[in-house]
């Protein structure tokens, strides 16, 4: 039997996520025992802004789902912090209601009963010193009464403008200090991570200063999706794809993230942000990085980040931005059988707004693997359907022994990773049309996760919260990645600033210029 290790928690917290403390010391944990779930150490989850939309629709239900799946430790406390004159009970009622409404798994009264005993609420505003003192004291008390051993994750579900105040408070009360707490202290922040390089750097410096850089978890919920993780399995667990995953065989890559919805409820935020900052900077560049990165030497957070940063830093913008960077804004139109408003007519949007709801850009990656391969990236609202996919288009065969008319319908071979919906992979290749003539046309071979499989696969938030509590940073972008992404976006924003966005009718695949951009290169968008 191995001996119980006696590292102080402050040291072992930094030992990396691959080997959680339990695995080294716990005689019951065996790496070959794959049935046992990964359960975090005793800890508290502190949610700031717990009355907000995100907390109610995602965080609280995800916490319940984790509890229901038996993935929370026996010693666990959920602490809410918000400016409400509330008792623990009031918070419990809210948490119960939102968990019941939005939980993915079945409602189980016993599970809730167990969780409800460990739900605390601390009222206060963010500039209220006393409230933060109470919070710090509560966390200290819970160490003994609930056995949480000083471990706590702080989820900042609040507007970024509030970050400095809250972080300063944590610094003052030394709540964020691993050594003082005797356990680990982690912080979770949501996008936007700044709105340009300078503000991102400022934010990173602030968070990384209050917490240590490795204790900061930036949530990009796209990375919690099953298919995104499957992309790494597809690329690095197989021999079949890697040899052709380069400029010798790949003609171009198209990454699309389309939404059919408008900007409901987010008008003020969205109008100040726009599609490029809202989606391109984070989700799309992360998907691009995962598609284009070199193979990490091992499947660990550190190794994956190293490769992602390399590729993000190698991204180049086209010299001719006028032709290869398109921004659009939806006009009124018909979508899914309903008339929808123009962007400028939406509530809380100024009638002369120049904010883009569509962005498409051609990016290049200056590495030996990708030199000369264009990465076409687009995102937009009020497009015909909600879909996110990565399509790798291969070059056409250098010589076709068939006559031209035989292969008229033959397009590029494609490998498509469907991120949502219908998670799966499609391979498109040419095949003979049955009959006495030699005709070749494209057929698609589909791999689809079973309907119920995707339903029961964990919600991205559930997975990500669990990873935070476990200290596994594999699926979280780090500060350098955020900064490298802004380095791509900043020149684009500078070029676009003051320009009038091109209008497109709601329910179309973006403005005409987006089609022209690919047509100029002799290509066309794949219809997802």
């Amino acid at each position, binding site marked *: *039997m191995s*001996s*119980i290790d006696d590292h102080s928690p402050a040291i072992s917290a930094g030992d990396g996520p691959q080997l959680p*403390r*339990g695995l080294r010391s*716990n*005689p*019951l*944990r*065996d790496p*070959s*025992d*794959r*049935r*046992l*779930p990964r*359960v975090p*150490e*005793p800890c508290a989850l502190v949610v700031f802004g717990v009355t907000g939309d995100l907390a109610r629709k995602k965080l609280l239900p995800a916490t319940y789902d984790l*509890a*229901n*799946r*038996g993935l929370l*430790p*026996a*010693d666990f406390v959920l602490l809410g912090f918000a400016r409400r004159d509330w008792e623990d009970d009031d918070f419990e009622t809210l948490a119960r209601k939102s968990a019941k409404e939005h939980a993915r798994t079945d409602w*189980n009264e*016993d*599970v809730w*009963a*167990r969780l409800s*005993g460990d739900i605390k609420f601390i009222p206060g505003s963010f500039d209220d010193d006393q409230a933060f003192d109470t919070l710090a004291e509560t966390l200290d008390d819970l160490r003994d*009464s*609930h*056995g949480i*051993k000083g471990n706590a994750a702080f989820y900042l579900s609040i507007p970024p403008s509030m970050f400095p105040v809250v972080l300063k408070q944590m610094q003052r009360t030394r709540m964020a200090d691993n050594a003082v707490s005797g356990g680990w202290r982690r912080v979770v922040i949501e996008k936007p991570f700044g709105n340009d390089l300078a503000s991102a750097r400022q934010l990173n410096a602030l968070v990384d200063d209050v917490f240590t850089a490795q204790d900061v978890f930036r949530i990009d919920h796209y990375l919690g999706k099953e298919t995104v993780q499957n992309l790494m399995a597809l690329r690095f667990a197989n021999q079949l794809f890697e040899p052709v995953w380069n400029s010798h065989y790949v003609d171009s890559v198209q990454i699309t993230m389309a939404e059919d919805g408008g900007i409901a409820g987010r008008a003020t935020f969205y109008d100040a942000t726009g599609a490029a900052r809202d989606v391109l900077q984070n989700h799309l560049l992360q998907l691009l990085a995962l598609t284009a990165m070199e193979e990490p030497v091992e499947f660990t957070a550190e190794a994956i980040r190293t490769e992602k940063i390399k590729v993000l830093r190698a991204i180049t913008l086209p010299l001719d931005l006028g032709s290869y960077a398109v921004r659009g804004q939806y006009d009124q139109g018909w979508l899914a059988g309903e008339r929808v408003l123009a962007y400028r007519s939406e509530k809380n949007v100024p009638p002369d707004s120049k904010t883009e709801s569509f962005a498409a850009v051609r990016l290049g990656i200056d590495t030996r693997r990708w030199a000369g391969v264009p990465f076409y990236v687009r995102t937009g609202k009020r497009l015909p359907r909600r879909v996110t996919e990565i399509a790798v288009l291969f070059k056409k065969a250098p010589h076709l022994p068939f006559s031209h008319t035989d292969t008229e319908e033959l397009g590029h071979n494609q490998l498509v990773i469907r991120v949502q919906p219908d998670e*799966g992979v499609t391979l498109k290749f040419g095949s003979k049309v049955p009959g006495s003539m030699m005709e070749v046309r494209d057929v698609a*071979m*589909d*791999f*689809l*996760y*079973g*309907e*119920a*499989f995707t339903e*029961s696969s964990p919600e991205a938030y559930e997975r990500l919260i669990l990873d935070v509590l476990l200290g596994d940073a594999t699926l979280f972008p780090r500060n350098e990645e955020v900064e490298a992404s802004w380095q791509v976006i900043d020149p684009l924003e500078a070029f676009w600033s003051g320009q009038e966005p091109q209008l497109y009718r709601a329910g179309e695949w973006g403005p005409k210029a987006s089609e022209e951009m690919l047509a100029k290169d002799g290509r066309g968008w794949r219809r997802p």
Partner: protein
Amino acid sequence: MTTLWDTSGTAVVQALAAERRSGGAVTSGLALTLVVVLAEKDTTDVEAAVSTASARHPMRVIMVMRHNIDAPVPRLDAEVSIGGRHGPGESVVLRMFGRLALHAESVTLPLLAPDAPVVAWWYSETPHIIAHDPLGVFAERRITNVIRDADPAASLLQRANDYAPGDTDLTWTVITPWRAALASAFDTASAPATSVVVSGNPADPSAQLLAGWLSSRLGFEVPVEKAHGKYISSVSLQFEDGRNVQMTNEGYKLLMRRPGQADTIAPFPQRSTGDMLAEELRRLDADGPYGEALGAVSGQTGLNERPASRTHIWHDPALAAREG
């Protein structure tokens, strides 16, 4: 769905191919073939389990029901369907009569999904020697269910005698929540354990496997002490630093009691056979910890070093009965 009466194996293969072709969007992502051996009376239970599991693992299910072996004329009835009551995958139900039942593999082999792993599951009545059943010989993974045998404890010992890596039993799957809870109790331990006692029904295979697993991991004997309840009632842990933990199963809750700390309650998920089958199908390699636990229960060593493949041993139950 296609139903075939008094048919042949070739006709069943053709019917499956026809269903696949005419079914429109074909599910082509088959991960495995599951061969279930069951009795007619278990159909409802098995169908429910299979439809749950096949929603999580794309698979082809072949259900084999053997009927009166001494019937004078062998006969095969079959049902072929895709996306029906057996879940989203492909399913073939085979009813075999007469001597054909002893040659079930002759119908089953051509129906296996090409180059996909094969899992055999005996819903009840595990063969005494798995090598006697040709369906267990070509399967990479074999799942038994000793709790449905007449004497489960004796059956479990026989599983150890007959063990080959790749075997598991559902009485082991049942205790995953217990094992998870115990492992997380040990996560917070600051000193080694000195004694652990499982309380419950000493004859229950799950209680035995849990004690066996604990013994094999902790390196000292973990007994099963008689207490109320048919299965596992509680586990108590004693640590070197004087700390002790009492974990009690209260219906679908697990109560954890530690002196000086508030009691905690964790949910014990209510899992159906389908959920457990789905857990089994997640991994298709040998389950080493099960082999070790089974070894500890039976007092045998080196279970996991045994050869993983079996050779079919001809066994005729009619002949065996006559010889007594």
